[in-house]
Structure formats: C-alpha cells, structure tokens
C-alpha cells in the first residue's frame, strides 16, 4: 500500500500524467459529436466562473454572491465589442479588464466591511445588474438580449464549429486555470489563506487583510470576465436573465459541491452546474427543483468537503480497513466533544468525522 504512495512522488510519473492530460485535452474535441462538445464547452465556461468564485471565497474566505454579475458583464462587453467589429483580441482584453476594474472599485469600498456586509453588497450586483442591463439597452440590447456570431470555425482549421469552440474554451480556460493555480499555490495564495484563517493574525504578521481582500475580489472579477467571454464563444447570445440572482446562488452551491478552495474542485463544480440540470431533465423535467435540492443535500451529506474530497475519503476508508493507518494523534476537535454534548445518553457518538482542512476550527 505504501509503494503506491511513493510511486506518485517520482518526477517522471508527474510528467507522464501531465502529458496524458495535455494529450487528452487535445484529442477529446475530435472524439465526440456536437452535443457532447457543446456540453463540455459549457462545463469549461462555468468551471472558470467557479474558479473565480473560489479565489475570493474558497481561498480568501470572503462571501461573494455576485460572481454571475461579472460573467454577465464580460458577456455584454464581448457582445458589444463584436457588434462594433473590434479586433477579437482587443475584445477579449476588454472582457477581462472592464469586469476587473468594476470588481476593484467595488472591493475598494466593500472590503472595509465585515463578512456578512460584503455578502450583501455582492448580492446587490446581480439584483441591480438585471434592471440596469434592461435600462442601458443601446449597449445591451435591453430585454431582447443580444447575440454575437464570432466563434465559428475558420476554414483553415478544417474543424466543425463546436470543435473550434471547445478548443477555444480549453485553451483560454486552461491558461486561466494554470495562472490561478500558480497564484494560489504561491506567495499570494499563502497570504489569502492567512487572511481567511484570522484577519487579526494576518495584520499582526504584516499582511494587510484589506489589500489582499481587494486583490482577491479583483482577480475573481477578472476571471469572471474571462468566463463571460467564453460564455459568448459557446452560447453566442446573452440577455439580462444570464446574470439573475438565482444563478449566483447555484454558482455558490456548485463551488461548495465541487470542493471549496480547490482547483480541481472548480472543474468538478463547473461539471455539477451544467450536468445536474441535464440529469434532472432525464429523470423528470417537472421535478427539477425537488431533484436538484435532493442531489445537493445528498452530496453534502456524504461528502461535506465536496466531490474533491472523494479520493481522500476513499483512501482513508481503505486505510482504516487495513488498521495500519498511521493517522497522527488528532487534537480533540470540537466535533468530538460537541457531538458527545449533543448525542443522546449512552449511544456511542458517531465516529468523529475527521475535519477536512476547510472545516478546521481553532478550539478556543
């Protein structure tokens, strides 16, 4: 059992798996039909959106219910740019910058407030964004929405439109994921984690919570802009309904279901956002809300840490089975003692679920 663990440490294994991933990403669009490619592309779009939300929420611990607003803003900027026939690269840059500037301005004012107040300010974004989009109809096409045809496959590529679009999503999304991974695993990521842990401790270490919260918000809204651009690449139409508040709540749920504060969790979150409605449609279109609620609660019951904690949970279950698990002496976490406090008399309390890193609570 221990040989498998060391195998994975060897450098050539890391390179091989990276190569496999790159090859997979290059080949996939050619393997499947248009419908599946479209589904994969949409998963890519919302994986990037969830990644942005993770930067500000999963990694930095600030509650944001406004991520869908930046996706919508990115989409509108793209649609307007295309309708004015600007160069596509310029359109992409604007689709990233304008939401980032909006995020920066909002964060500069909001980051001073406490946790719940920030949540409220971000809630305002989609809720005020929808009527605002209707009002600025000369830019946004108002309630009819606006479509933008710019992502059809060029002739030299010899690809079908859906394949070309999926490649665009994989290319741009992949780069965004790589840059974000390096950001959160590097110096900034550590600062975010400390700000999330305890702001007072962070400031005592010379890390200004305010500055890093603003940075996290700005990066999140920039990534939101990227997902807006990719949304237009894939859907080629947007309307005020795109940034409705209900979608912002579903993005939050997808982030937690995928696994908060994890790069892979963002991919799984994007997949959850797109595939669950399709799954419930297969089971029974009239029971959408009932099924989606049940699925959400079921996953959280089995995997409180989200889908990304599946391998860890599976390894631990296998580890516990063989009895040689060298698990270190766990500090008496609040779950143990409280579950005893709450449990009924005499019944041995459920085996204390070891806290995943996002559940660690200092035991004051």
């Amino acid at each position, binding site marked *: 059992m221990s040989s498998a663990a060391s195998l*994975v*440490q060897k450098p050539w*294994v*890391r*390179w091989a*798996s*990276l190569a*496999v*991933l790159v090859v*997979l*990403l290059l080949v*996939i669009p050619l393997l*499947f*039909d*248009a*419908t*599946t490619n*479209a*589904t*994969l592309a*949409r*998963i890519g779009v919302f994986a990037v959106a969830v990644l942005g939300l993770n930067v500000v929420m999963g990694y930095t611990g600030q509650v944001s219910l406004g991520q869908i607003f930046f996706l919508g803003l990115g989409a509108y900027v793209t649609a307007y740019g295309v309708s004015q026939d600007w160069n596509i690269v310029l359109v992409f840059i604007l689709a990233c910058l304008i939401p980032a500037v909006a995020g920066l301005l909002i964060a500069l004012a909001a980051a001073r407030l406490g946790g719940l107040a920030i949540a409220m300010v971000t809630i305002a974004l989609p809720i005020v964004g*929808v*009527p605002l989009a*209707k009002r600025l109809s000369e830019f946004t096409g*108002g*309630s*009819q*929405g606006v*479509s933008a*045809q710019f992502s059809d496959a060029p002739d030299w590529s010899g690809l079908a439109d859906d394949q070309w679009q999926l490649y665009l999503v994989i290319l741009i999304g992949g780069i965004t994921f790589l840059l974000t*991974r*390096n950001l959160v*695993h590097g110096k900034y990521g550590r600062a975010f984690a400390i700000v999330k842990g305890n702001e007072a401790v962070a400031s005592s270490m010379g890390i200004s919570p305010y500055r890093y919260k603003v940075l996290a918000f700005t990066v999140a809204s920039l990534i939101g802009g990227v997902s807006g651009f990719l*949304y237009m690449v*894939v*859907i080629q*139409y*947007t*309307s*005020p*309904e*795109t940034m*409705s508040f*209900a*979608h912002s709540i579903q993005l939050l749920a997808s982030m937690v279901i995928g696994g908060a504060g994890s790069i*892979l969790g963002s*991919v*799984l979150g994007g*997949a959850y956002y797109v*595939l669950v*409605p*399709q*799954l419930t*449609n297969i089971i029974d*279109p*009239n029971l*959408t*809300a009932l099924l989606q609620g049940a699925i959400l609660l079921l996953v959280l019951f089995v995997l409180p840490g989200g889908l990304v904690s599946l*391998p860890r949970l599976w390894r631990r279950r296998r580890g516990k089975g063989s009895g040689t698990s060298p698990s270190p002496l766990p500090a008496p976490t609040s779950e143990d003692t409280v579950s005893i406090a709450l449990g009924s008399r005499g019944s041995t309390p459920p085996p204390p679920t070891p806290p995943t890193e996002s559940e660690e609570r200092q035991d004051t």
Partner: protein
Amino acid sequence: MTRIRRGMRAASVVAGIGIVAVLAAGCRGGGDTPSESGSSAPSPGITDTSVALGITTPLSGATAGPGTCTVAGITAYFGAKNADGGIEFGDGKTRTVEINALDDGYDPQKAKANFDQLKDKVFAMTSGLGTPTNRAYREAAIADEVPQVLIQTGDPIFSNQQESPWQLGFVPIYQNEGEAFGKLLASSSENHTVAILAQNDDYGEGYVEGFKKGIEGASNITIAKELTYEATDTTVDAQLTELASTKADVFFNAMSITPLVISALQKAQEINWLPSWFLPSNTSSPGAILEPGGASAFPGVYTVAFAQSASAPTFADSEEGKTFLADLKEYADYPDVPAFPHCVWSYQIGAVLDQVFQKMTEPTRDNFMEALRSIKDYVAPLMLEGSSVDTTVDGQPAVSSVIVQKYNGKGYATADTWE
C-alpha cells in the same frame, strides 16, 4: 521546474479521469451526424408511425406556472388524438404524436443546451415560453434547419420570414394587442387621459409601442404618465399611488404577473382611483384575476383576446371547454382549472399543428414548413368567434387578429365601440 509540485501531480491525474467520467455522463445523447435532408429522405424525429415534437420551456423557477401550461395543453390535445389512433398525415400515413419537454428554468444557456439535446431526436421545436430562451437557440435552429414554430412569445423577430426562415410565432405580437385597444380608445367621442404601467421588458415595451401606434393622431387622447415595474417585484403599490395622482380616467396596464395584477386592482380601489382598465390577454382571466381583484368596481375592464379564458364561468359549461378540461386532466396530469391562458394557447397550437400535418405530403422539415405557412382562416378550438389562424402573412404570427373584449361582471363580451 520547481513549480510542478505534488499538487500538480494529483490535479492532473484526477482531472484526466474526471474529464473522461464527465464525458460518459454527458454524451449519452450522441446520435449520428444529421443526415442530409434530401428531398425524400425523412427528417429526424419522424417515422412511418410516429412524429416527435420538442419543447424547451421553464418548468421550474418564477415562470414555472405558465411554463408548465405550455406543455400541458399540447400534451392534452395530442393525448386525445393518439387515443383515437393518431393523426392522418397528408402522405397517407397515420402517426401518433410524442412530446419531449425539457426544463430550461427561463435561462438562455439551458434552453440552448436543451435544443442541442433534442435537435437530432425531434422533428420540430414548438410551444416554448419566453423571448430570451427562444432567442438563445434561434440562430442554431436556423443553421441546423430545425423548425422552431408556434412558440409562445410575442417577439416580432420570430414572425419575420426573412430574418427567421425556420421560425413562426403563435401568440399575437405584443404590438398587435396594444394597437387594437388604442384604436378602440381613439374611436371614443370624449377626451381621455391615460396612465400607463408596463413591465420593464420586451413584453411591456411591445404593448406600449402598439398602443401608441393605435392612438396616433387621435387628438382626444393624452398620456398623463408612463411607469414601469420589474417582473421580480413583490408589489406595485408605489407605482399605483403615483399614477393615481394624475387622476387619469383610463389605465393601460401591460403586466404579465398574475399576483401583481390582482394587487393592482385591489390597490386602485383602496386609493379610490376608478379608471377604465386595459389588461393584456394573458392576465385578464375572470376567475383567477378579476374576481379576487374585485374588478366589477371599475367602470370598464377591457382586454384583448383571441381565445376563451379557462376560468370564465361560462367556459366549464361549454362543449369545447369540457373536453379541454377533461383532456388536460387525463392526458396531461393537470387536474385543476389553469390560472394561466398558456394552457389554452398550447392546446390550440396542437390543433394548428394537426392541420399542418394533414397538409404535409412528405415527412421532411422543408415540406412541413411549406404546409405550416399555408393555413388560412382556420378557427381553432376555444377560439373567440371573429378571430382565426392565418399563417400566410409575413411579419405576422399564426394568430394576429384580436378582438377587444369588455368584462361584464361574469365573463367577456366583444366590445366594438367605446361607450
């Protein structure tokens, strides 16, 4: 190279597996590449014994009420026809009609996803509710040459054959309804001041645009104040108060949310502002709206309609009304009287498609579109006398002629003049 740390190793391996697993779940719908629809080869979604129709409409969320109806009506109509053996097509074959409905929760990207799912399995898309959702897959439907017809939105783009060759609207475009009432008001002998409250989207804008066209040049009509409200608002009391201060004697109301219309009727009485009302066709049902709102307190309540209202007292006694409610209950599992007109409209869409199928000579989408655009002066079931289906006019949906009705305390009667 130090960047590729332990994290990257786990991420890349699991991501690879993750993507493959995701594919397995995602691609179960992969059919064959769309066959070239040659002149005789049958289009997808139709066989010698059956034809499949696709619907993407909101079955969850705020617009689930009318959304559920857009499926229930057509399912009821064809449920009854299938029970009698099916429909005899122009090409001599008798086919049963199967409805594949998917929920898009009024979200454009889900509507496009549902269309991608259905386009190779159904013969045509129909009856879906909502402008943004229908627009989301309009271009794709044109590119894939999939009919998107008799859809429940008043957006004029779907009835413009040049812009949307594979599309056709069913309900009158919002402008038609507004214009019909405007013309009637203009024909009145006295002067009138009008207060306007419209929903802040294409629905409300369309009505107001049509109304202004209807009263163009009429010197006796002046608009006192024009306000909007949001579909997600919980109340319109403030707007009512502001409009009441204008003391206008006519209230042009373009609202599609049933509870808000009821509270508006009640509020106007509270602040004793008793103008004549105009209500759009989909929020003027006597039973669901006018009675709870106490509408008999107003001098006149006008609406525009082409179909009977399911909750009108006379409806349940009429022959057609009884069969409709019975079919709804038996085949569409919709046990009670619908509060939304979309059930009746969806039933009528079924009837119109029935006529089209009878005219089709080949099981192809091209032939279907030709037959679709050749229906003239057809009085569908539950239609008000004087209005009919006419799909031959470019720029007009299947139903364009509308009749102004006046509420008489129990139901509606046609109103030819403004007395």
